[in-house]
């Protein structure tokens, strides 16, 4: 176990290009389309199971844990490119949220936030979820305001409308709405992604994922 953590020590000292190169193995490339698929299918399955969440980031978080931040950025951006081909081009700008979350989760994975050995360790996952919520609110709110004028047409628009009706500014209303909606969704996504990542047999994990999870 000590040697594994040692390997991530090397990573912290190597240059950005070296790190990125060592992350993009063939296994990692092959994982990208699968993760994109999981992002898209996650949304469909929540409909079948009638879970009132989006869960459209499980694949990206999974990729960040299994293959590192840079691979996950490619997967996250690609998810929304693919979604604009299969669902609606209005989803394209939200690729930036996926990319930002990918970087954050990948960084935390390097720092060992997904190495859990005892029951208390699951608090680490809550910590990851808090970071994911913060990052996604910070990145998605400006997109919602600048591109959509604060209203995306989904059910959350009603909440934004209520905040606006109480005399709040547009950006405050959007941020408040996001903080109401995102936490449950992102906590669920992080936990589900962790348990799925753990269930992947070691031989199918890229080398990054062999070090980041336990």
């Amino acid at each position: 176990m000590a040697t594994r953590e040692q390997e991530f020590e090397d990573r912290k000292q190597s240059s950005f290009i070296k790190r990125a190169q060592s992350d993009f193995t063939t296994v990692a490339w092959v994982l990208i389309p699968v993760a994109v698929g999981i992002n898209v299918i996650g949304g469909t399955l929540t409909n079948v199971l009638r879970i009132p969440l989006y869960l459209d980031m499980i694949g990206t978080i999974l990729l960040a844990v299994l293959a590192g931040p840079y691979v996950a950025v490619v997967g996250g951006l690609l998810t929304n490119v693919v979604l604009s081909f299969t669902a609606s081009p209005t989803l394209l700008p939200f690729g930036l949220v996926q990319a930002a979350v990918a970087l954050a989760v990948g960084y935390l994975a390097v720092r060992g936030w997904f190495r859990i050995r005892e029951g208390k360790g699951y608090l680490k996952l809550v910590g990851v979820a808090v970071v994911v919520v913060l990052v996604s609110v910070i990145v998605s709110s400006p997109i919602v305001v600048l591109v959509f004028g604060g209203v995306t047409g989904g059910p959350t628009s009603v909440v934004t409308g209520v905040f606006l009706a109480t005399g709040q500014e547009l950006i405050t209303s959007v941020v408040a709405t996001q903080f109401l909606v995102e936490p449950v969704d992102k906590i669920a996504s992080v936990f589900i992604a962790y348990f799925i990542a753990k269930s992947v047999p070691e031989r199918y994990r890229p080398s990054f994922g062999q070090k980041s999870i336990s």
Partner: protein
Amino acid sequence: MSEKHTIYGTNLDDVLEEAEQPGNVIDYQPGDTFLHRLNPVTKLVISLGLITIAFLIPDFRVGLVLSVLLAMVVVVTGVYRPIAKVLAVIGIPLTVALVVIQGLFYPENQTPWYIFESVPVFEQIIVYEEGLLFALLILFRILVLMLALLGTIVTTHPKRLTIALMEKRMPSKLAYVFLAALQFIPQMRQRANAILDAQQARGLDTSANLWRRATSLVALLAPLLISMLISTETRALALESRGFAREGERTYLFDVPDTTFDRALRWLMFACVIAVAVWRVIL
């Protein structure tokens, strides 16, 4: 495309269509129109350029003019059916939400535009001019975005798009990942349904309480991921045996022509965007 390729006597486009599993909301519409013949990169550049212009100028009339032009192009080429479907599904709720919320509550609302008298519960409901103008601005911007990108997507086969992008030096691995993701989604959807059936047969309860249902998501997604990983290993071997990782010149099944007209259009679009940006900065 103008040239007709055949494989064993069958038209290439038909072979491709058969190989594809449709089921996405936005499918490629085969055809031989002006839009289909443009180089995919040109279509992308024009789309992104028009979107940039619409977002740079804070006046809804620009968006309106661009939307009308784009709509005319789309209707003339006859690919409007899938586009209209997406516009209806995404656009109508968005329009309603934007007009209602911004018309009533936009923070800079001052001038009443229309007053609904004697509404129950509230005494009156005032729709404001500023909010409506803001809603229109956003709506036409999004309409430009949707029409331009949908027009591009519907008239461009993903394979042609990636070949055109690879000719513009996009790494071939990125192209593979994009095409594979597009192909995987219908496949994964089928597989997810099969896994759902199997888990239900084993007693997975889709009408249990919310917490149970949320945890059962792991029982659905984990087999999906692992089975995909196993099949992608085979895929990786197949790719490798055909020289996926090799460097150097490649030949493509399709020839995606990049004409002088395409190049001229791209530069024209580029110049327009720069001109608008400069004009916005100076004013």
